[in-house]
């Protein structure tokens, strides 16, 4: 049976690990996706196709590769990260980066291609240009963030393999659900599943709310016009 304090700890770790992984993947994926979308260089389409394939990267494959890297005899074994929350963050980041990168590139490519030339033609520096491009694409960029978070919070294969599902240390909601189910403790598994769903829902609700709020301002407001 699970105790309340244990459930709280598992939930907190899930949120912490997935939020950090999403944050890191945003730091990598947003600039990378922007570069892919705006760049004009040889091999761009090839890179984009790799990223798009990466969006469907199976978590167990990522788990396997990260485990091999972090295994005590592996190339990064000295870091002693295997079966720690940090290992889960690494694996989840690898899963989320292609998602955030690919959707960022798609978001920016959906803008009018002449927008960047217009911004530069009005005297924007490169950085100012990128900032206003992000501003214009903020709604689909938020969707990229939501998709990245959704991919990692619900992922189980990689967390199980690199984290080891150690009680009190690396057990997260999804791995706990797998364990409870395998023990036949369906009530506990169901309760944890409900918790996972509610959490995911609340976070997406918050982001959707932000998205809708900025969308509402675009609608014609008849009462404002003179």
């Amino acid at each position, binding site marked *: 049976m699970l105790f309340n304090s244990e459930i709280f700890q598992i939930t907190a770790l899930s949120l912490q690990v997935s939020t950090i992984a999403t944050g890191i993947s945003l730091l990598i994926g947003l600039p990378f996706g922007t570069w892919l979308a705006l760049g004009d260089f040889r091999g761009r389409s090839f890179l984009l196709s790799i990223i798009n394939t990466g969006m469907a990267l199976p978590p167990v494959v990522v788990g396997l590769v990260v485990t091999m890297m972090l295994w005590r005899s592996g190339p990064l074994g000295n870091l002693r990260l295997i079966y720690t929350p940090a290992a889960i963050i690494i694996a989840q980041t690898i899963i989320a980066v292609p998602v955030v990168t690919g959707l960022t590139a798609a978001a920016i490519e959906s803008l009018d291609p002449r927008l960047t030339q217009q911004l530069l033609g009005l*005297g*924007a520096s490169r950085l100012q240009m990128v900032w*206003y491009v992000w501003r214009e694409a903020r709604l689909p960029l938020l969707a990229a963030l939501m998709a990245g978070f959704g991919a990692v919070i619900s992922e189980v294969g990689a967390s199980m393999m690199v984290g080891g599902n150690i009680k009190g240390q690396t057990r997260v909601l999804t791995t706990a659900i797998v364990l409870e189910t395998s023990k036949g403790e369906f009530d506990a598994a169901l309760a944890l599943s409900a918790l996972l769903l509610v959490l995911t829902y609340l976070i997406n609700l918050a982001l959707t709310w932000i998205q809708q709020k900025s969308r509402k301002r675009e609608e014609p407001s008849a009462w404002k016009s003179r």
Partner: protein
Amino acid sequence: MDTAKEPKKRGAVSVEEPLIEIRDLLMRRSGRDVLQVDALNLRRGEILAVVGPNGGGKSTLLLALAHLLRPARGVIRFEGKPLEDWNALEYRRRISFVFQSPLLLDMTVEQNVELGLRFRGIPKEERRARVHPWLKALGIESLAQRRAAQLSGGEAQRVSLARAFVLDPELLLLDEPFAALDPPTRARLLEDMSQILKADHKTAVFVTHNLDEAAKLSHRVAVVAEGRFQQAGTAHEIKTHPAGKAVQVFLKELSQ
């Protein structure tokens, strides 16, 4: 518009020196030669209309002048100095570009118009003070707080023009700014633009495929067709003495 301003220091530069000189220019896009200009000058205060059939290389010329496309060969000089020797940002902050579609950002009309000033780090009070007269001059004062997405095509194009004019650019590049508008809106905006450009002694390059529009707005007309600068002169000269087959074909298409 600028009458209250102190005399411009631009006058101090030799009057004879052209603002823009194009020599032996070849522009290539995706491996194809799209524009050749052997020689073309632009004086300060001159408005040059560039006319020609679609796909003839007119827009490429503007992009090259804006330092947004690099020539495959040849040189464009601004104040006697080749564009590649200018710091791209510094150069682009002395000019301004208006595209065929307004390309407004998702913000209010006022915020859109002050965008270029914001890029240049101009403080808020000064931005407001400079934006207001241009909103008025283009008749969009009452729309200042409206979101860009709520504007009609004509209104949006006025915002786009105000956004360029407010920068008081030394060179204004206009790529068919009226092409997407219905005829009455187009005529009104053309009238307003013509007054502003001439009253303000702007130097401008204005792309169009309408020769009457070109005649109305410009001092001189340049014909670009079949990827080549063909001829420059007044609209009348071009109509009466077309310099080659490509110009004749273009004139013939216009009259049909």
